[in-house]
């Protein structure tokens, strides 16, 4: 980009009308997305987008713990499980309870945050690899508990999982059934899309606000140098526990929605592999950068599904299917991850801070920083 172009772009970026227009277009795109996708690609794709939104919430939660505070957590999916099981137990025939969703979700967030503190407390002195091992253990413990809590009292229904979970319903309007009003039919997955979108946007908003706050800076300070952070008066214990709790609460909400959406959950959904996938999302997208994390979550949920078309592609180019697309797709997916990490080690959309870490181009830096803060003017 030539400087004049860049200037024009900068100008555009700050022009009020452009900003409003951008928001408007984004709003319309997001509002119409399920209908367009459903018509063009089929309804199964709306379901995939719904899952992508759940993963965005999860990834943004993990981003607080790993991206901001620098605490490598490999058991993060346990908080998702806590949220999911809380919803399942309170809104299913399992105990005959049918609580409303607006009561369960905040409770899920709180209980998951409590579990976050429970995990954080014994690991306060650990960092890096050691912390990763302990959190990995924690994730497994939660999963094993869920698998075995069917005796002596049957709480979780063990490996069979809990089924017939109530769909999310808002004001007597059940998202589990196809609804129609004003001549528009709204299938279940479409309705869930709007709910998940709203909550994802809320979580994005919270993440943005936290990032540039006193607490956000304290998290980054701990990531950079914990001893110095303590020596500057940061109560590292509380601030780290807060990071665990915040991250876990996002997962708690996401988990609850997952249970209501799916109607069935079992311990199988909360394996170590899931924790790793969520970690992949933030590393691939760009740790610490909200846009990057969202992109990572979208790519990692959608790309493997898109690769199912590899069979059709082979049919088209060779006249027959040479390799089973199901074998091929994870291979291609893995390869893609490796290539991305080789060429963009800081992630696809690295945070400003991390981009600086990996390469320091002074001229670019000063411009970025000038637009980041306006403290001097």
């Amino acid at each position, binding site marked *: 980009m030539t400087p004049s172009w860049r200037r024009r772009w900068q100008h555009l970026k700050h022009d009020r009308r452009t900003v409003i227009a951008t928001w408007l277009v984004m709003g319309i795109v997001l509002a119409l997305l399920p209908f367009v996708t459903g018509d063009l690609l089929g309804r199964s794709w709306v379901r995939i987008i719904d899952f992508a939104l759940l993963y965005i919430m999860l990834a943004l939660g993990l981003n607080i713990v790993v991206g901001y505070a620098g605490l490598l957590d490999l058991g993060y999916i346990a908080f998702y499980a806590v949220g999911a099981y809380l919803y399942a137990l309170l809104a299913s025939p399992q105990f005959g309870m049918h609580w409303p969703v607006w009561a369960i979700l905040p409770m899920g967030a709180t209980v998951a945050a409590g579990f976050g503190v429970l995990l954080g407390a014994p690991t306060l002195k650990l960092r890096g690899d050691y912390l990763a091992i302990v959190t990995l253990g924690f994730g497994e413990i939660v999963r094993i508990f869920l698998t075995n809590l069917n005796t002596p009292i049957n709480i979780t229904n063990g490996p069979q999982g809990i089924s017939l979970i109530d769909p999310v319903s808002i004001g007597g309007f059940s998202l589990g059934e196809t609804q129609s009003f004003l001549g528009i039919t709204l299938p279940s997955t479409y309705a869930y899309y709007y709910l998940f979108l709203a909550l994802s946007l809320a979580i994005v908003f919270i993440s943005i*606000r*936290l990032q540039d706050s006193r*607490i956000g800076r304290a998290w*980054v300070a701990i990531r950079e140098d914990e001893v110095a952070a303590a*020596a500057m008066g940061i*109560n590292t214990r509380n601030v780290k526990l807060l990071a665990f709790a915040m991250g876990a609460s996002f997962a708690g909400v996401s988990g609850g929605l997952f249970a209501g959406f799916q109607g069935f959950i079992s311990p199988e959904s909360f394996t170590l592999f899931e924790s790793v996938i969520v970690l992949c999302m933030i590393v691939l997208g760009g740790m610490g950068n909200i846009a990057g994390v969202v992109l990572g979550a979208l790519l990692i949920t959608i790309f493997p599904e898109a690769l199912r078309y590899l069979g059709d592609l082979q049919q088209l180019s060779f006249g027959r299917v040479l390799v089973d697309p199901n074998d091929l797709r994870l291979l291609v997916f893995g390869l893609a991850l490796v290539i991305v990490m080789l060429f963009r080690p800081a992630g696809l959309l690295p945070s400003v801070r991390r981009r600086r870490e990996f390469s*320091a181009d002074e001229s670019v830096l000063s411009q970025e*920083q000038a637009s980041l803060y306006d*403290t001097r003017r």
Partner: protein
Amino acid sequence: MTHAAKLPTAHADAAGNSSAAAVLTVENVSKHFGGLAALDQVSLAVNAGEIFGLIGPNGAGKTTLFNVITALYVPDSGCVRLRAQMLTGCKPHDVVQHGLARTFQNIRLFANMTALENVMVGRHVRTKAGVLGAILRDHTTQAEEQAMTHRAQELLDYVGIGRHTHQLARNMAYGDQRRLEIARALATDPVVLALDEPAAGMNPSETESLMTLLTRLRSDGTTILLIEHDMRLVMGLCDRMAVLDYGKKIAQGTPAVVRRDARVIEAYLGGGFV
């Protein structure tokens, strides 16, 4: 930087007190590492408004004493007080809360944060905004954030690196990093500022301007506890000083007295210094 604002501190009253009042007292502190007595019954009293030097050969226990004072280490016996407040047994972050801030011998900045952000982290202990404030960004939080940014910039100007506001700490020149560490410590509104070899690795002209900065800090009412190897700096700057050798305090007094002390000359300075 020359016409920078006077340093306003939250504890300005401390400077107004009679200069003979001890703000920081170390009483009979001992610290052993295995069989090694790193500190043996060390006592000191730092008076308000002075620069107090702590010198001694390598391994004399200076940094150990520093770490005991700032509560990174727990002493085996003895105690440290800041005015009436007992610091021994406190957590490191409480020590800062009570008004004692430090810098490190090997610079420990938040390398991937800007100079401004580094100093803003120093303000953490004097500010309150929590998660809810951050999310809602209410008037109180906004005002606090603004005041924080303003104060941080003021301090950067004060220590003479105001033009590097948005530079990453790790990209700054060595001498500037030292200054940034001082600015970050000042951001906590300390009663006593503890500097661990601030001139280490500096060239003579950088050392010179550091001396100017420290003198100005003193005249603006900050009490300074200083570990230093650079004799010219220590002798020229300190009001009083203590000499450690093998974990014991072997002398204390004004630079003029200390440099004539026979034990000091033997232990540390060598015969040729006087």
